[in-house]
């Protein structure tokens, strides 16, 4: 297999809300380049928390190893995530991570074209016209480019979000329940498109979903959760990798 992108060992994140505490523990997780990693589990098990950790927007409470390896000036560099400053995290994120949000997370004031191009703009990566056309053509968005997101269907929005997450050729694509708001056939389509495009780019995909049947067949790695209630107000979720 390829070189690892994420390496996690004994990473712990404790969140407290309203007096209840929730602890996510990742004993061991390695995600390699080009892998399709699915994160499955019922709601409230810590899927999103794990994704946020991987997206560098959430700092772990504790970790013995938590690193991300991305290309910098043609060489690979491994970063110790807990030590990253907020701005460094943002810089790594803009160049190396594509994020597909649950409801698309499109900017309502931009057209579809602008929404897709914004991540390229932010990352500073030039996008050839042909490249763009191929991507939107593959996702079937050719006719929607000048529309505002509010005029799109849920599936189209989700596809725009996929395009936005891919346009700047990130090494990592994080997808947070990208199929939650669409019907099953569309979900399958989107899943396949995501998988196919990421594979073409050689990017690692981490896809969070509550629907195991959607990803079972295609996952290289699957993260599941074992949830135990230690006390009435204390929950521990430990990941297991399959």
């Amino acid at each position: 297999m390829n070189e690892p992108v994420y390496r996690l060992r004994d990473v712990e994140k404790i969140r407290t809300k309203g007096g209840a505490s929730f602890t996510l523990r990742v004993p061991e997780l390695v995600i390699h380049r080009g892998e399709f990693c699915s994160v499955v589990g019922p709601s409230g098990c810590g899927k999103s928390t794990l994704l946020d950790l991987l997206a560098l927007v959430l700092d772990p409470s504790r970790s013995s190893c938590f690193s991300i390896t991305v290309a910098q000036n043609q060489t690979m560099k491994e970063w110790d995530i807990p030590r990253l400053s907020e701005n460094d995290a943002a810089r790594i994120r803009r160049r190396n991570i594509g994020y597909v949000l649950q409801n698309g997370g499109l900017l309502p004031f931009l057209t579809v074209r602008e929404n897709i191009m914004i991540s390229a703009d932010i990352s500073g990566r030039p996008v050839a016209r042909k490249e763009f056309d191929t991507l939107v053509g593959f996702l079937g968005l050719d006719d929607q480019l000048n529309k505002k997101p509010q005029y799109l269907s849920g599936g189209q929005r989700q596809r725009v979000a996929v395009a936005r997450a891919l346009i700047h050729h990130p090494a990592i694509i994080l997808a947070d329940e990208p199929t939650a708001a669409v019907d099953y056939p569309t979900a399958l389509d989107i899943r396949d498109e995501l998988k196919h495009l990421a594979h073409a780019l050689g990017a690692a995909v981490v896809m969070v979903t509550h629907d195991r049947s959607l990803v079972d067949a295609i996952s290289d790695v699957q993260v599941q959760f074992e949830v135990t209630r230690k006390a009435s107000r204390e929950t521990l979720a430990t990941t297991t990798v399959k």
Partner: protein
Amino acid sequence: MILRLALKDILHDWLLSTCLVLAIASIIAPLLILFGLKFGTIQTLQSRLVQDPKNREIRPLTTKSFNREWFDTLQKIHPEISFIVPMTRQISTSITATNPAGDASEQLSLMATAAGDPLLLENGVTVPGHAACVLTEPAAQSLKVSIGDELLFSTRRISKGKYESGEFSVLVSGILEARASSLKTAFVRLDVIEAVEDYKDGRAVPAYGWEGEMPAAYPVFEGAAVFTPSPLSKLEEVMLTNNTGFTQVKMLSGEQAVAMLGYAPHSQWTVYLATVKQRAAMDESIQAIRSKLRGKEAIVAPWIEPLAISVKSPLAPPVALKLLTVSEEITPVAPLSLPQGFFEGNEKEERQTILVPSDCALGEGDAILSLTVEDRELSVPVIVVKGGTIASLAYAPASFAGQLNLLRYRNVKYDEKTDSLLLSRRGYAGFRMYTATIDDVENIQQKLEGEGISVYTEKERIGEVRRLDNYMGLIFWLIAAVGVIGGISALTASLYASVERKKKELNVLRLLGLLKREIVLFPVFQGLLLSGGALLLAGSIFVVVSMVINHLFSAHLRTAESLCTLSIGHFMFLTAGVFVLSVFSATFAALQATRLDPAEALRDE
């Protein structure tokens, strides 16, 4: 890029953006108008009411004699006196005015005025020139005259048991509105009132062709040159200062004599110079010395401290000279070659002659002699004769030189009609004074009363007006403060709310990898764009409203005055203030909105 995104967002949400712009504009516009009124002419109108010359007037309650110097020094010591004009005795200011048609005649009181008179100027009337007057509205009404009409003024006196009247005509150059004065008054230049007073006192006023006594200038001297065939004893020297008006006697050597007198006496004469201190000596003092030295074959001649004069022949630049006196008596003493008739110029219609050095650049014949002492000036036509031997010394007969010398002590003027030097008046019975502001009145009143001059001021009125002004000021600033505070909170709240609404978008941008400062810039740009638009709108509203206000009240304004106005500086200050506030509130709101983890913020919603 951030600016472009911010602008796109505003345009996308154009309805809400418009609401925000309208809201901010509606906060700013009334404030602009309020301040526009404050800084516009309403302030001027208000201060015109507060600082009405009527409130700043100070008049003496009693009649005293104030000489010119008193007026000059008073104004020098107290710069807060903005205007002062002397007044004659009350009794001599009454005059009968008759209109051109001759069908209305009215007793008017004359009031002296001069350049800078605030009572006239601040009521929009120019100060009258020569042979012109400004009438108060009641006076103009009862005389049925308007600006440009000619009035006949007449004044009466009793001379040798008979009534006489002196008349002169005066142009009405302005009419003072009734609010400035309700009395029937004519404002004229001081010399007109002086002429009327002189006439009533029986003196001649050549300027108006009125006959009477002439107040001829009398010669005064600072000393007497005494020439004796043999030296005087100490006792005799002392006698010269005993009851003669002179205080000091000094024997002069030949050289000193030349320096002091301007000529060298024959060596057989002993020369003494008796001089005065402070007060000048008159002819009587010279006579007193003569009588003291009777039988001693002494020659006594008047002496003046060399007087700086300037003589100008036609077509030649003026020449500065020192004037000394010579008199007929000294002929045996000093060999001075004087032209024929040098001492006879005193007769009427005979110009006074002065002797100037032969080598000076003046032509013989008619010339103008002028001299200035302190602020008193005098110019007299003279006949120049050349023949002096000492450079820059001029000589005049003692009587003429003495008259000129009087300028050192009193005001002397040359009267063309009689070709003679006349005394100007010595003092004035009263005055009319204005301080620069109403706040100075009390101080000046105390000063004058300290000098023993009781004066009338509008003290009570000043107190009331000042209180009212304070209340008005307080109310304005209260309204302004409430407005400004309200404006600040509304602006902050509007921008804060608009950022709060954008929370989701801001966090999406963050997740896409924008740095925190770039995220903050987004609402900051939006705030600036929105408040900039609001400023433009408020500015336009202000311009329109101020034009309406100025148009409505144009009748009450002078040209170049506007009731409601703001300067470019005010606008710049306002713009800066609003922008700083926008940046501040947008930054604050943006930091608040991005405090949470971006993903969490997105899911919360």
